[in-house]
């Protein structure tokens, strides 16, 4: 008999819930900050923006979540939308509760390609998580020589925008041209109104020496990509993070297979060029 721990990629690393907050008034979006029980686990859990983890509650199951915290932070931050069996259980967790995580999984945003370039970030809804990690990371690493940032981020209503304090911070940063938009007029909202694809169309994003990263619900991506192409972005300049139902997270169970790729292993970050010619199963 063999008792496997670390060498078994299906077993989890124990974490403790260190902090809990709600992003939206309807409490459907819950942000958790996780602390590893074992410091050695945190040391081994080296990740870069774009990667995800599997969050496990024994007895309920696992769900994949993009990592929203900066790799240099001690805690791991994720934001969970309450939609299903497992996320319902995650929403019951309080500070001090235990859980398990596996990871980090997947590939990262193309950090090397971003050096000396302008980075345009486009996002919608709660897909913004890994992009928060990306922006924090890039701002921290000035040696990348990023020439400037665009941030176009939209949500259904102001309540559904993630990390509002961060958004305010970034608004004040002269290197970042940020447009935060909501779908329809709402009382008290003085910012932009309009769907993300329209805002992108009307913006002056330009492709010269730029890399665009876009994360959001499938419909938003579908409508926004043509706008970027119209502006002259080439397919190898635009990157997206795909979402799929996942189980193992390590390219074994077959669920997230699209063409020759496993979204959990070869992705979730793909360039538009890679997705050309593949079935649009996302």
């Amino acid at each position, binding site marked *: *008999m063999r008792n496997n721990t670390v060498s078994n990629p299906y077993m989890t690393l124990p974490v403790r819930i260190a902090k809990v907050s709600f992003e939206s008034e309807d409490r459907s979006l819950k942000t958790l900050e996780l602390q590893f029980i074992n410091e050695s686990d945190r040391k081994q859990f080296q990740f870069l923006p774009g990667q995800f983890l599997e969050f496990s509650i024994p007895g309920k199951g696992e769900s994949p979540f993009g990592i929203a915290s900066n790799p240099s932070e001690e805690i791991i931050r994720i934001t969970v939308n309450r939609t299903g069996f497992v996320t319902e259980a995650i929403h019951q967790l309080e500070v001090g509760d235990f859980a398990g995580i596996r990871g980090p999984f997947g590939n990262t945003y193309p950090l090397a390609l971003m050096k000396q370039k302008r980075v345009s970030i486009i996002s919608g809804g709660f897909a913004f998580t890994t992009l928060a990690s990306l922006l924090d990371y890039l701002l921290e690493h000035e040696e990348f020589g990023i020439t400037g940032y665009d941030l176009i981020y939209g949500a259904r209503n102001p309540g559904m925008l993630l990390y509002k304090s961060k958004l305010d911070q970034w608004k004040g940063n002269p290197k970042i041209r940020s447009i935060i938009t909501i779908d329809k007029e709402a009382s008290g909202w003085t910012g932009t109104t309009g769907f993300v694809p329209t805002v992108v169309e009307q913006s002056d994003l330009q492709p010269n020496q730029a890399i665009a990263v876009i994360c959001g619900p499938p419909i938003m991506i579908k409508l926004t990509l043509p706008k970027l192409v119209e502006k002259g972005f080439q397919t190898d300049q635009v990157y997206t993070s795909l979402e799929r139902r996942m189980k193992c997270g390590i390219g074994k169970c*077959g*669920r997230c297979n699209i063409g020759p790729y496993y979204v959990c292993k070869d992705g979730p970050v793909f360039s538009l060029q890679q997705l050309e010619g*593949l079935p649009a199963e996302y």
Partner: protein
Amino acid sequence: MMRFFKLTQQDWEKFLQHQSTQIAVVSMEKSKHPFKHILFPPHETLFYFRKDTHKELSEIKENKVLYYGLPPCDAKTIQLLGLNLLADPADPYFQTIRDNTVIISKACDHFEPNCFCDQIGGSPGALNGASAILYTVEDGFHLLVNHDWLSEQLVQMNFIPSEVENEKADFSKGSVPVREIKPLPIDHLREKGLSTISKTALWEKVSATCLACGICTFLCPACYCFDIQDISFGRVGKRERTYDSCLFSIYTTEASGHNPRPTIKERWRQRLLHKFTYYPMQYGEIGCTGCGRCISECPSHIDIREVIRDAEQYCE
């Protein structure tokens, strides 16, 4: 290192007898159930857990077993599943079973109505990742061994090996039936399968009578999709994996309700292209052994050979 042994019927029986005093020895033959059900069981406990202390415990039993008599198409499972399950990070459950399994397959002496291994580049006498393969000859058997431990066992019993000079040679000559049959156009699918993605007419035709029951995937030696589910009994429980099927409607359905493969057309496209286009792109081999179980057990008797030929028409 490959080795060659000549054995009489008595030698063979003596060998099996001796092995069975040391390890479990199981006789197999081609049946409806693929060998996959042993290598990669329909349900497997990944680990047990306690909810309060969050302790996890996995137990993977290491029992050495010798299986003999399998047809080459069953032996191929080990090779095909291994390509995916042993890729980094290796699946420790499959790895343990595989490392403790010795397979002596037996070359077939006839083709069944739905066999088509020889139409997809295989043969009823191929080694296919088995530890050894037995060829029946006039005065006994020829045993081709590609497994150090097994070679050693035979040598210790004073069976004399000959070295194999050319490992790619065809040792099955004369021992297996050969038939005049047109190969299936799998090269087209391998290279141009992606061009059929948008050909709705093809997928409509192929899936018109498919019930999406999943029998084909459950009995296929090359299918491996699984689901992971937690089962709890109060404070303790286990995390299990069970067979799943890309043909099931909820396979890709997300918590939001969105399903990237909403109808049976997209799911059949995934099944066919995964086997004959995507798997070769990822690992170099097609995900099919030509055993024909998917044809004989399908309630609608959908014939994958016909589907491959149809799909070829639509490749560009």
